[in-house]
């Protein structure tokens, strides 16, 4: 359990860093590191499939998308974040952490829960056989994403 908590703390630290850092490229790298840690956490939770997915897609593909965008939008002067927002952040974070822990402590043993269905076979079976409609949804998502990006980057013969 200790290892998991350490990994989760690392995850939170990198995520916070991704927000605070001024340099967007460093922020993107921190985000990738956070995803990597999350993937390892997933492995430790006995969830290898989502771990692989998280690392390859989020730490991989999304980071690449970010880096491409950052490269295409190098501004002359950086966007100055509000000074206040930046150094209030650690304070608010710690505050929230405290509230979080208190709420969690008070909720121990108070939440009723039902047992779930028994384990349903391998991941492949579950994804393909049980949640087939989700796969249709995923196809829809991918179409929407691809068509959307194509529409946004199309060549225009005359301007609006």
């Amino acid at each position: 359990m200790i290892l998991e908590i350490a990994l989760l703390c690392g995850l939170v630290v990198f995520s916070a860093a991704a927000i605070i850092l001024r340099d967007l490229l460093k922020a993107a790298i921190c985000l990738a590191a956070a995803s990597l840690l999350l993937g390892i956490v997933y492995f430790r939770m006995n969830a290898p499939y989502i771990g692989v997915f998280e690392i390859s897609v989020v730490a991989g593909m999304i980071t690449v998308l970010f880096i491409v965008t950052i490269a295409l939008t190098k501004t002359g002067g950086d966007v100055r974040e509000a000074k206040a927002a930046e150094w209030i952040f650690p304070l608010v974070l710690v505050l929230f952490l405290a509230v979080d822990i208190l709420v969690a402590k008070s909720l121990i043993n108070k939440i009723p829960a039902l047992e779930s269905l028994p384990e349903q076979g391998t991941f492949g079976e579950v994804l393909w056989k049980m949640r087939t409609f989700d796969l249709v949804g995923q196809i829809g998502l991918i179409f929407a994403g691809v068509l959307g990006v194509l529409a946004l980057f199309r060549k225009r013969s005359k301007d609006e």
Partner: protein
Amino acid sequence: MAFLFVALPLVVAGILPLIGKISKKVLPDVVANSVLIILLGLVFVEGRGLVGQAASIQQLSWLGEPVNIKLLLDGFSLFMLFAVSLVGLAISLFSIDYMDHYGSKANFYALFLVMIAGMNGLLLATDLFQVYLFLEVAAIASYALVAFGLGHDELEAAFKYLMLSAVASVFIMLAVTIIFGLTGSLGFEPVSQGLRALDAKFIVGLCSAFFIMGFGLKAALVPFHAWLPDAHPSAPAPISAVLSGLLIKVSGVYALTRVFITVFGLPPDLSTVLMYLGIISMVVAALLALGQTDIKRMLAYSSISQVGYIILGIGLGTPLGILGGLFHLFNHALAKSLLFLNSGSLQMSTGTRNLDEMGGLAKRMPVTAGTNLVGALSIAGVPPLNGFWSKLIIIIALIQAGHWAFALIAVLVSVLTLWYYLLIQRKAFFGKLNEKWNAVREAPFWMTVSTVLLALLCIVTGIFFAATVQSWVRPAADALVRGVQAALGSVGF
């Protein structure tokens, strides 16, 4: 068979870009529109098959092996499918002419079909996660469609819409996860049974709050409405029509209703909260609509107001209230799409959306003026058009349930609605013809066809409202009132 509702638009959407490369002019239009016509026909086929049996959960089979796709087809989802197909067809006809100057029409139609597929998938979903998934499909398609024109306003509106929508998604998914944690499953029926077995009032209340925040944002209820007045005016007219006429209702109202009534069973506290949200939306949005000069912004605020009516009716929880709310949903989908399409015609002919600059256009654009009048009167609730009947039913339901104050406010807002719609009519169409518009012509063929179609539907639904209510709306209301198991014993066909 019902799977075609999702599969057909999706598959055609995939092929459309290729078709677009082959023939830019005619083929994409024909293909896209025929898809919608087929869907409309499918609604009737499915409806006929459904008469006399309980809600059907359809199981597909592919090449002999049963494929595990379960689709929920009951009175309520069929009713919404009907609305989506009907309004979708009208909008798609309109786009034949309107989207000509935006370029890349095949791509537009493809995105539009993906959105329709997403909405249909949401309507047919059997469990909470699928509702969320297809909601996102339709939403992502809509982000791209809002920004389709690539102008500054459109991009800004699309980005804000995306951000707010992402927040809404977080809340919805949070609630779904908590429910998953509590009951261990996601399907509508197992969850509702599970929640009844548990006694977790606080957690269910918390989830309801999250759902209201999430779906309320999608439905543009006050105070979650901030994205709509920016997104709808900036988007191209047919997209504004789809967003206002369909998307906020399918992903907002339908999802909300499904979850709250079918799964949660609408406890009385929740009912009160919904009614208050509805009333506040109605009043605030109507007041905000008065001060607008941009015609599409005024229509956008009016949408927020009318969704308030719908939520008021449904939130009331009585059979008559639900009936009124659903009927108003249908009527508003027809009429609001009509009005937005007309605003598109106006924008295309005159190049402006500013009401103060228009004037006396009825002489040059008689068809548009006429259909606009029908749409405006319908939403304002003037007899014998359809809007009147649905508002009347809601008001009667309120009185029956003893909520006199609400009923009074509803009537007053109705009057307010009539006022600002007449304002639009007067400023844009009647009065003296502004010199600038002497050369303006009526809207192109397909645009007039679709608006006339919608106007005729408004009139017909109004005159024959008893038949419409009996055959379409009552089964939907019954399906809701009796929970997941619904008996579709209507006399409709």
